[in-house]
């Protein structure tokens, strides 16, 4: 399995994701944003961080970089794309995923472990999880408040495109278990072909029991298959 991690100026979870991919035996390459060509890959990851300082809007400027055109091409030809945190924001800015990520409801940066529920385990990203499994996973963002229009929300419900929702430890999805105000507690979504996943929580931070837990491992092992 060949993976590529796109590195923008200001990306800062690039090393963390590379460590995770290597640990899971992916053949990984780091791709600097000024490159005009992507190495052949089965999986492209846009990591978290503050690309271009999150200036203007988070993800906006990275969304205009030359490498992103290559990512769009790859996506259209069916390559798997995973955007984590800032990566998710970049994917919405390019239009590969619909909707947008607004400022957190409390207007503060939030870093903590939260619970999320796996809504759809029939995708290339989540096949190793059980349906409705609850994961404990770290979030760290200023703009994670997912928003989209009613039509798109309906479409996502119909086609099962909502990947994860924030919930409490018992799996209840409600306002109390919503850390950032995201519409319907949405923590991650797919595009309609389900080859693109954008998520705010950081699976790469959950692969080592010494640091946290290993709830993120199955995301990578699902992809390996």
């Amino acid at each position, binding site marked *: 399995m060949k993976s590529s991690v796109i590195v923008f100026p200001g990306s800062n979870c690039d090393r963390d994701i590379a460590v995770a991919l290597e640990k899971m035996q992916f053949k990984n390459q780091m791709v600097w944003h000024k490159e005009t060509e992507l190495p052949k890959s089965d999986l492209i990851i846009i990591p978290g961080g503050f690309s271009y300082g999150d200036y203007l809007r988070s993800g906006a400027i990275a969304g205009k970089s030359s490498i992103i055109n290559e990512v769009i091409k790859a996506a259209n030809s069916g390559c798997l794309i995973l955007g984590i945190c800032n990566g998710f924001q970049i994917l919405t800015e390019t239009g590969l995923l619909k909707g947008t990520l607004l400022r957190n409801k409390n207007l503060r940066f939030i870093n903590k472990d939260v619970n999320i529920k796996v809504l759809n385990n029939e995708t290339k990203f989540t096949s190793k999880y059980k349906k409705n499994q609850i994961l404990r996973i770290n979030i760290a963002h200023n703009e994670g408040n997912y*928003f989209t229009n009613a039509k798109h929300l309906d479409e996502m419900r119909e086609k099962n495109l909502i990947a994860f929702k924030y919930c409490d430890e018992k799996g209840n999805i409600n306002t109390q278990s919503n850390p950032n*105000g995201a519409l319907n507690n949405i923590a991650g979504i797919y595009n309609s072909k389900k080859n693109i996943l954008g998520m705010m929580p950081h699976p790469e931070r959950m692969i080592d029991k010494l640091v946290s837990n290993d709830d993120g491992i199955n995301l990578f092992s699902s992809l390996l298959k």
Partner: protein
Amino acid sequence: MKFSVTVILKKDVLDPQGKVVQNTLKDLGFLNLKNIRQGKFFEIELNENDEQKAKNAVKQMCEKLLANLIIEDFKISKTK
């Protein structure tokens, strides 16, 4: 030639920032505040004498980068 551009969230988009600002202002005692919306503001200076061309360029800047048309509207006006 100088332009000023305002970018603001579309009406049907949730505005967490505006809401917090509104509540804070109310707490500060501004009881006659009816509504406040927050957006971005740009002051753009171009090396271009043809007003139509300049305006067009600014419009493109907005469409390509400065505004996210899915959630935001923009307005351009010429300043002296």
